[in-house]
């Protein structure tokens, strides 16, 4: 079975500052990794994904994440955040096409003016 740990439950940051949201996973087999975002009072939507190939993946709204197999990490980064990035971010992992997705506990990003 796989598991996901998001090390920070909340991350406060000032507007236009860089941010990194940390995610570590555990699995005995190869994984597919994802970040989802949940804006206030909305459903979750896919931000970016790693399936194979380049370990640096880019997503919507200027976010990117890097897959590090040796450190079993998939941290999410953005060089300059906006107020509108305030949301809950979830890291997730699955191991096979069609299997269920295992989510981390979420990180609440709070962008302050």
């Amino acid at each position, binding site marked *: 079975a796989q598991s996901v740990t*998001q090390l920070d439950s909340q991350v406060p940051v000032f507007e236009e500052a860089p941010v990194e949201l940390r995610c570590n996973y555990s699995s005995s087999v190869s994984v*597919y990794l*994802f970040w*989802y975002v949940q804006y206030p009072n*909305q*459903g*979750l*939507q*896919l931000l970016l*994904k790693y*399936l194979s190939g380049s370990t640096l993946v880019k997503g919507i709204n200027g976010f990117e994440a890097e897959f590090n197999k040796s450190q079993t990490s998939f941290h999410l980064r953005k060089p300059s955040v906006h107020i509108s990035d305030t949301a809950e971010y*979830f890291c*997730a*992992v*699955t191991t*096979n*096409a*069609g*299997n*269920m*997705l*295992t*989510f*981390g*506990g*979420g990180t609440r990003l709070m962008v302050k003016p």
Partner: protein
Amino acid sequence: GAGVSQSPSNKVTEKGKDVELRCDPISGHTALYWYRQSLGQGLEFLIYFQGNSAPDKSGLPSDRFSAERTGGSVSTLTIQRTQQEDSAVYLCASSFWGSPGELFFGEGSRLTVL
């Protein structure tokens, strides 16, 4: 509509009553998932349907919870004899076969058990 539709959006019930939550997935999506999101918690997997295969029920927390998917489309999650700890947002998602992890979520059904 184009997205995953869930109903009701809000449900308040009394302890001990049964509730049904409905999910209408995106047309053509073969996989359907139910998750539960409790206050301050992450997303807890409940059940997964894939085409005509037997569902993966490994996440259902007790035998009071059940789900069905009729005709490979609409799904209903039923909670019998509701308890206060069942209060949560119940999220439904669907996906294409062959698109691992790319789930499309509905906005959820918020259940409050008094």
